[in-house]
């Protein structure tokens, strides 16, 4: 596409340095996160989440949809008036009355959102491309009169014909929009395609781009990174990846991937990640899977022999960051895949001191126990096993 040699480009981007100051996170837990089927935050919860995100160092919070009125509008008004360090953005359709609601709330930024794909324009909106462009122009024009920062969101951008997407972006830019949000509404992009499309828009239109990627095929984080590599400056995230269907790019995963894989440290207080995730998990009534990347309770809990041995010798052998970096703890449990080293390590921590032969015998006992119980052993069971062994 347009003379981009994807293989060469992709390889060259593998180790490229990007200035951390140029990358901004716009978290939409309170808008797209709450839009998840079944999730409703109380206003107090919204306010608390906004404070926590601000405290961590977030750049922008998408606080909700003022045009919904009622409680929703009240919450946005409150969040915009709390004196947070971050920017507060509100979501709108390209409708003047929607933007008027946002202005009422006192936000500094607005997103003006409309579908750009033909399938959405024809089958959902039942309008034309021209209608879409005109409504965006009018809405941006109106918002700019109030000196708002304006993001124009291309919903279903991934399925939008590239020529029209460029026209859509140019239309937004010329109307005075500050950035274009690229919405992978169905989560159907892979990093290669993402990279090519974002690079094309950047090269030809030059507008700032924000990535809004869904996780339907498990690619939200990788696609957000591909966008950054292609020149996007903003990424739209949600805590725990909360969002419609399979969710959005998870805030904590993206920030840590930037820091540890891309060497882009945003300077956020990551130690508060587990606390934030727990709070959002409770408010959204969706508990954190124990294996969830970055904040899952079990990701630093090891059972297999090699992992315990190599991790205890040097943490970097199995993890790129430490549990404390995200507010977690580490642990060793004993089960079917334990070996002599891990068993000794664990039993020493429990105050025992066995020789190698004893450990070999105990290992067989505990492995068989784990197999018959179909789980790892509790510390109390281990202690009991050791004491019985010593008696015999």
């Amino acid at each position, binding site marked *: 596409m347009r003379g981009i040699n*994807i293989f060469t480009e*992709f390889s060259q981007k*593998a180790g490229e340095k990007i200035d951390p100051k140029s990358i901004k996170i716009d978290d939409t837990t309170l808008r797209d996160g709450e*839009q*998840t089927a079944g999730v409703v*935050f109380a206003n107090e919860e919204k306010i608390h989440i906004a404070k926590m995100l601000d405290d961590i160092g977030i750049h922008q919070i998408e606080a909700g949809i003022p045009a919904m009125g009622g409680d929703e509008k009240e919450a946005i008004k409150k969040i915009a008036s709390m004196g947070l360090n971050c920017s507060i953005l509100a979501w709108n359709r390209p409708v003047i009355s929607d933007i008027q609601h946002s202005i009422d709330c006192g936000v500094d930024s607005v997103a003006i959102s409309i579908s750009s794909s033909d399938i959405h324009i024809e089958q959902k909106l039942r309008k034309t491309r021209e209608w879409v462009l005109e409504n965006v122009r009018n809405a941006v024009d109106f918002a700019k009169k109030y000196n708002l920062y304006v993001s124009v969101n291309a919903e279903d951008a991934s399925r939008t014909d590239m020529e029209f997407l460029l026209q859509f972006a140019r239309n937004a830019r010329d109307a005075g929009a500050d950035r274009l949000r690229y919405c992978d509404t169905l989560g159907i992009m892979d990093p290669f395609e993402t990279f090519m499309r974002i690079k094309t828009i950047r090269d030809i239109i030059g507008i700032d781009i924000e990535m809004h990627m869904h996780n339907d*095929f*498990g690619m939200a984080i990788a696609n957000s990174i591909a966008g950054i590599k292609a020149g996007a400056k903003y990424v739209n995230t949600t805590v725990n990846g909360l969002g419609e269907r399979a969710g959005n790019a998870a805030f904590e995963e993206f920030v840590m991937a930037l820091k540890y894989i891309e060497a882009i440290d945003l300077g956020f207080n990551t130690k508060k990640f587990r606390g934030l995730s727990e709070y959002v998990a409770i408010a959204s009534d969706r508990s954190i899977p124990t294996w969830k990347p970055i904040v899952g309770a079990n990701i630093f809990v090891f059972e297999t022999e090699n992992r315990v041995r190599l991790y205890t010798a040097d943490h970097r052998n199995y993890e790129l960051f430490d549990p404390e970096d995200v507010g977690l703890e580490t642990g060793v449990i004993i089960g079917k895949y334990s070996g002599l080293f891990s068993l000794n390590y664990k039993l020493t921590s429990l105050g025992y001191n066995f020789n190698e032969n004893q450990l070999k015998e105990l290992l067989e006992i505990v492995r068989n126990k784990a197999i018959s119980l179909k789980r790892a052993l509790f510390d109390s069971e281990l202690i009991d096993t050791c004491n019985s062994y010593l008696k015999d």
Partner: protein
Amino acid sequence: MCADNINKEINIIDSTLRSGEQTAGVVFSKNEKLRIAKLLDEIGIPELEVGIPSIAEAERETIREILKLNLNARIFGYCEADPNEISYCQDCGLKNVVITVFTSEGHIKEKYDKNKNLLLSKLKDTIREIKNSNMNFIISTEDGTRADLELILQIIHIAQNKGAMRVRICDSVGAFDPFKTFLRINTILSTVNFPLEVHTKNNFGMATANGLAAIRAGAVSIMTAVNGLAEGTSNAALEEIVMALKYLENIDLGIDTKRFREISEYVAKASSRAIPIWKAIVGTNVFAHESGIHADGVLKNPKNYEAFEPSEVGLTRQLVVGKHSGSHTILHKFKEFGIDLTDSEANEILALTRAMSVDLKRPLFDKELMYIYKDYLESKKNKKEDVEESD
């Protein structure tokens, strides 16, 4: 683009029964292992890694029974590169084995006393045992993405000379993104032409994307686990890899995806790890729509908000009624109940529904919608009576 990669033979080796079971705290019973092996075979997974023979006699017995099932899938055992391990594999009757070497600097320091030659000699000695037993083998490079590239190339040369099926590159700490994965695989393959397999991890949420990037770069096989089950964070999830290959890369492996939800549920039960409702591909919420815009779009045409039909993975579509619902959802829901609302009725009921949902902090059940409707009719009747009385 990349037309040369499309329709290429891509292999899946599923390791739910080995790497998946290594999850801290997870143990499958023999019956569960047999069932999972059968299920995966039935849907057409070509290769299965089923366990570590040296762990215990019980494990060997399970492996023997899996072999007795005479599945179409090729069955692999797994062990470290240690000549003593091979007799356990033989004892089970295994014909195929994955042998692991620890390849990054930190791993070599601990496992081979900083001695790369010890690694290579152990590998060669183990291969000699394997050849004596007439087994096929894959060499797996633990922490291979962080290993010295020269060492990986050396290992591939050994694999080539000794007739290994493939070499597996493990991103054991999830240290790579798709760009780095692509570069690494591409670099290896531009030096030596040998079948490569990848084992990607989800430490930073990129296991599936990295698996796809490896395929784009020319790798021919991906190691997966159902639900991504693994120690720490996840492996590349079988269901995500298969569907992503099909829908994002146009590579249809011909696997019976309609049984994905069933298999995910079985593994979830057996591993005592419930499937999050938002789990990509198989979560019950991935075809649930609440917000006005989305629900309306889906009602007009599911393709507006769905990349594939829910039945394709054994799920069903749901319309959830709550705070973000729009009037179209209300009209549609009541039509299902056999009630045709007017637009103005739908709008009034929508307002009541949203208020109730905000108050309850959750979506509403169908019954609750009916209660709202009855209350609404009553209040309308009362209003009418009021009006009549005042006349």
